[in-house]
């Protein structure tokens, strides 16, 4: 370990390498002193390492920038190479659409400008390149406005640089930066405002019009930058170590920075229909997603004293750390709590993490990552962070009825997991009032689902013990019992009981599936009928597999054929699912796992699962439990995973085919070559001169040809599978939407009439939701008094509609990429003129397709 590495890495930290104190000047001096000595023999390594550090630890960029500025005084060549490397990085990042790298590299360049390493005008050239690309994209004639997401991203990148170098730019090239600002303003006037519809964590069902009077992300950042400029570019959150060395740095040679180019946006579709536009927009938004949507769950008093731009900078720091240090728990937590800012930001930090956990359509990482980060921060700041987290939970809980359905699920999964890491301690008494609410009240459902997940992660008695201060909540615990095997008691059907025992002993006696099928066909079905036989088989096999997940898998692997034989079609598969649900009625988890596995072994089709979920007795549970939605989610997820796996396999195989073709061609050429040479020597192909070599070449050519053929064959078979999967997928989503539409239509009419919620007006029942909204979120009730929520007044039918519509939106959003290709068909077959406007709106907002586009 050479110490220059540690010094570069640990600069700005309270680490032993720097004597445990933070003093930027000392750190830079010490680091510079060592690095300059090593420059001669380890220049290349230092260069690579510095570039890596400044990309992956972006909150330290100002320190690296100053260090490079000082190195520039010593060794211009070295710094020139750094700039060449940076230029290459930036160009690669632009070409591949690597958003984080583009943003961070631009920040790095800004800081290098502050340290006199590059000319301000070079930086402005980069800004102008991005700006002009952005302006082209949103131009109706020359560009493709459906790709506005990219244009917005470029503008965001430019604006994001200004906190790091705005004052230098204004001082050194006032006219040029002014030109950029005017350009951005012009851009803002051409582009369309981006609506949050379909992606906001809180659904304001009564405020569809807010779209027109609320700033979107780019406008918001623009106004923060304007404030900053009015404040003479002064801010607290960006360290400016280069000022300490100003006198020296001016002597450095400012280098030029080579030109960069922005990628072309795809052509606009020839036929500019609403759906074509939406499809392209979806694609662009996937590639250039908005990084954060602020949650604002804490009252303004917690963060108000911050300048708006400081808030933005801290969010940038936190998001960068979360991104670059994922998987390094200690480093990640240490960086998060040790940002280089002179103010406290624990509320902001919690808000930022929760905004990621709940980010729609998808956070950059799986939600479990944020669970881990929150756990680690609670341990790092035991005096402060747990209370902040609890405040966030209370705030979200109070607004749970407005929370997007997907977010509710994420919150339930996170919260139960979080508590399981902290001994299940929570002041449940605060929420005891949910027992007085009807069983469909979102608060009550939330508590019930959290407890269910806690039991899954732990065990019933333990969770029961954790709510002992509020024993009444036991009512919301899932049932304690295990499986419900209908033949275990004496009062079951005697004949079926006997058959079950017989089957059981056949299984214990290791009879094969074949033998069991023969037994069924010859002596059970003819006498007892299909229904009874199915019940006996399913109940008995489930009972045998009930001890654990592995027992289940074993029994399904061994006797799956028996089930397949007796449940060959959709109708019988639905009976099978019902039997599973009744056997496992005490365990939502086992029901879900069993159905999932059966779908895995293709004993149940995804269509059968959809049909069963929408069967009459289940529909009535849509708003009171997550049980059915979990099963539906699993089925969609599994279908999606199958398709993605096939896509990956096919891409991989296509590459292999190409490679195999090349290898085969080379082998063939070698062989031909050798043959022709022989001919030249003897006038005819006599295999005498070097028969060993000829034989080898021949067999090699044959082998490579065979390999090519077999690779191509496996590609073809995968493609056939893929085609089938695509058909299944299409059928699945059509069925899903049809079922949703059918169950919703009547209830929506009963509840909301023909009205669209937009026009429901103040007298509609829908306004009842408003009663619950408290404008500025008074989350300061640290005594946990939530009485105002006790007056829950949404009727059952209305809640049913809201929950179900919420899931329509959530599923549409989550699988948008799979749904878009089917959209023409869905419009034609499902979302016809006759569907209820609220249903249409739920689908459209999930897909972010706006009726007015």
């Amino acid at each position, binding site marked *: 370990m050479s110490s220059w590495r540690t010094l570069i890495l640990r600069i700005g930290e309270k680490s032993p390498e720097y004597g445990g104190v933070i003093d930027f000047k000392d750190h830079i001096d010490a680091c510079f002193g060592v690095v300059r000595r090593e420059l001669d023999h380890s220049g290349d390594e230092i260069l690579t390492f510095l570039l890596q550090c400044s990309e992956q630890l972006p909150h330290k960029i100002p320190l690296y920038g100053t260090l490079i500025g000082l190195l520039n005084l010593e060794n211009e060549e070295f710094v020139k190479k750094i700039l060449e490397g940076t230029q290459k990085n930036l160009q690669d990042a632009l070409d591949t659409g690597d958003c984080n790298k583009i943003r961070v590299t631009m920040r790095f360049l800004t800081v290098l400008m502050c340290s006199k390493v590059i000319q301000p005008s070079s930086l402005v050239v980069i800004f102008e390149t991005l700006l002009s690309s952005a302006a082209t994209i949103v131009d109706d004639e020359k560009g493709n406005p459906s790709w506005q997401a990219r244009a917005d991203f470029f503008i965001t990148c430019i604006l994001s640089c200004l906190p790091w170098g705005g004052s230098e730019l204004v001082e050194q090239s006032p006219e040029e930066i002014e030109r950029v600002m005017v350009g951005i303003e012009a851009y803002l006037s051409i582009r369309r405002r981006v609506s949050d519809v379909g992606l906001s964590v809180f659904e304001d069902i009564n405020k569809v019009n807010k779209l027109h009077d609320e700033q979107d992300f780019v406008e918001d950042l623009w106004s923060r930058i304007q404030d900053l400029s009015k404040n003479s570019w002064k801010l607290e959150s960006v360290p400016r170590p280069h000022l300490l060395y100003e006198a020296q740095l001016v002597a450095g040679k400012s280098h030029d920075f080579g030109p960069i180019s922005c990628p072309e946006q795809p052509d606009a579709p020839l036929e500019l229909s609403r759906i074509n536009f939406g499809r392209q927009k979806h694609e662009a938004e996937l590639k250039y997603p908005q990084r954060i949507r602020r949650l604002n769950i804490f009252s303004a008093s917690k963060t108000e004293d911050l300048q708006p731009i400081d808030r933005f900078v801290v969010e940038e720091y936190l998001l960068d750390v979360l991104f670059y240090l994922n998987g390094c728990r200690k480093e990640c937590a240490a960086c998060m709590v040790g940002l280089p800012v002179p103010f406290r930001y624990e509320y902001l930090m919690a808000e930022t993490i929760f905004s990621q956990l709940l980010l729609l359509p998808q956070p950059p990482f*799986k939600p479990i990552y944020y669970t881990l980060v929150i756990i680690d921060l609670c341990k790092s700041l035991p005096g402060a962070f747990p209370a902040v987290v609890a405040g966030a939970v209370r705030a979200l809980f109070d607004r749970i009825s407005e929370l997007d359905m997907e977010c509710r699920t994420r919150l339930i999964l996170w919260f139960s997991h979080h508590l399981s890491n902290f001994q299940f301690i929570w002041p449940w008494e605060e929420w005891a009032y949910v027992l007085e609410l009807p069983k469909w009240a979102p608060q009550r459902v939330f508590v019930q689902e959290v407890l269910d997940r806690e039991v899954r992660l732990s065990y019933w008695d333990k969770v029961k013990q954790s709510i002992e201060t509020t024993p009444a909540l036991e009512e919301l615990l899932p049932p304690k019992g295990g499986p419900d095997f209908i033949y275990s008691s004496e009062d079951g059907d005697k004949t079926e009981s006997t058959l079950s025992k017989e089957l059981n002993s056949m299984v214990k006696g290791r009879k094969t599936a074949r033998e069991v099928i023969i037994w069924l066909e010859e002596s059970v079905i003819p006498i007892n009928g299909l229904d009874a036989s199915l019940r006996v088989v399913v109940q008995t096999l489930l009972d045998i597999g009930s001890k654990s997940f592995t027992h289940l898998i074993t029994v399904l692997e061994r006797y799956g054929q028996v089930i397949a034989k007796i449940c060959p079609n959709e109708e019988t598969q639905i009976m099978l699912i019902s039997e599973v649900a009744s056997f496992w009625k005490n365990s939502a988890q086992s029901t879900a796992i069993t159905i999932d596995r059966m779908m895995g072994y293709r004993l149940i089709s995804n269509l059968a699962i959809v049909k069963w979920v929408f069967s009459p007795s289940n529909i009535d549970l849509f708003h009171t439990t997550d049980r059915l939605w979990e099963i539906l989610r699993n089925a969609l997820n599994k279908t999606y995973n199958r398709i993605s796996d096939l896509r990956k396999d096919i891409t991989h195989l296509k590459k292999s085919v190409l490679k195999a073709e090349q290898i085969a061609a080379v082998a063939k050429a070698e062989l031909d070559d050798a043959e022709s040479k022989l001919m030249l020597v003897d006038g005819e192909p006599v295999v005498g001169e070097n028969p060993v070599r000829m034989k080898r070449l021949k067999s090699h050519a044959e082998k490579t040809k065979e390999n090519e053929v077999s690779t191509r064959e496996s590609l073809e078979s995968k493609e056939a599978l893929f085609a089938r999967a695509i058909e299944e997928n299409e059928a699945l989503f059509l069925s899903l939407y049809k079922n949703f539409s059918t169950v919703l239509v009547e209830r929506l009419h009963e509840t909301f009439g023909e009205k669209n919620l937009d026009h429901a007006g103040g007298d509609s029942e829908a306004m009842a939701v408003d009663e619950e909204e408290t404008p500025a979120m008074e989350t300061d009730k640290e005594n946990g008094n939530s009485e105002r929520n006790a007056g829950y007044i949404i009727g059952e039918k209305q809640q049913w509609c809201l929950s179900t519509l919420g899931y329509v939106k959530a599923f549409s959003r989550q699988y948008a990429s799979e749904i878009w290709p089917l959209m023409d068909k869905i419009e034609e077959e499902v979302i016809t003129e006759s569907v209820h406007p609220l249903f249409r709106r739920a689908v459209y907002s999930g897909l972010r397709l706006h009726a007015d586009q």
Partner: protein
Amino acid sequence: MQRLLTFQLYILLYTRCFFIICVLLCQDLNKISAYRDRRFPGTQEEYEHALQTSITVYIGNMSFYTTEEQLYELFSRAGEIKKIVMGLDKNTKTPCGFCFVMYYSREDTEDAVKFISGTILDDRPIRVDFDWGFQDGRQWGRGRSGGQVRDEYRTDYDPDILYQRCGYGKLVQKELEEQRQVVDYGVGSLGSFQPPHMAQNHGRHSGGGGHGYGGSHRHGRGDYHRKRYRDGDDDHRGSDISKRNSEHESRRNSDHDSRQEKNPRFRESGDSDDEEDDRKRQK
């Protein structure tokens, strides 16, 4: 024993830096498992390759009572699970604190290692590593007692040495344990906001921030010897456990208990050190 201790100390000092660089440069986290399985039929390179492409994770330091369903609930949060294989004591055929989970995709496998290792399951900080792939037979514990080798290894050094090498005495241990008891969700004690701790020490020096909480203290939990009657096998399992090799069993039990009761924190602060040690050890 003494030699082992010195070795550990040396590794701790050395690997800290190694790990840090690794963090920065190996973002993809080619986190090679700490533990080199001596039964792997191949070279070191093949072993590493197996780990880098593996879709199996090894989970250790589990409670003997943790069920497959609990594992499923936790590990399915990293991705779709293909299979779970519980590690069993080769003598008693009962779970002995480790298992394998197999995923369908490499990405999910990596996420399980990155995001679940070191978190709590059934009151115990579990450890999650890449594994070279399950083969029949590996479900049996290989320890001398029939239990798990890694457990024995850990049992040999873990709690005491950790504290010795960090210079913690019994007093500090006790203090740590008191802090753990109180998880504050009550009045926000912002007054005790700590200056950020840096990498090496976070979580260990908790300062004085852990006092003055209102609400739910819970001392002693008294459910360690719980028995869960989840299925008919439990009685069977119970009697099996009591039949076990008495000397080792009592040592392990006391180890479990003391770990949780005396100092439930040991693993959070020690887990990554552990990995670092092992990483080095593998080199």
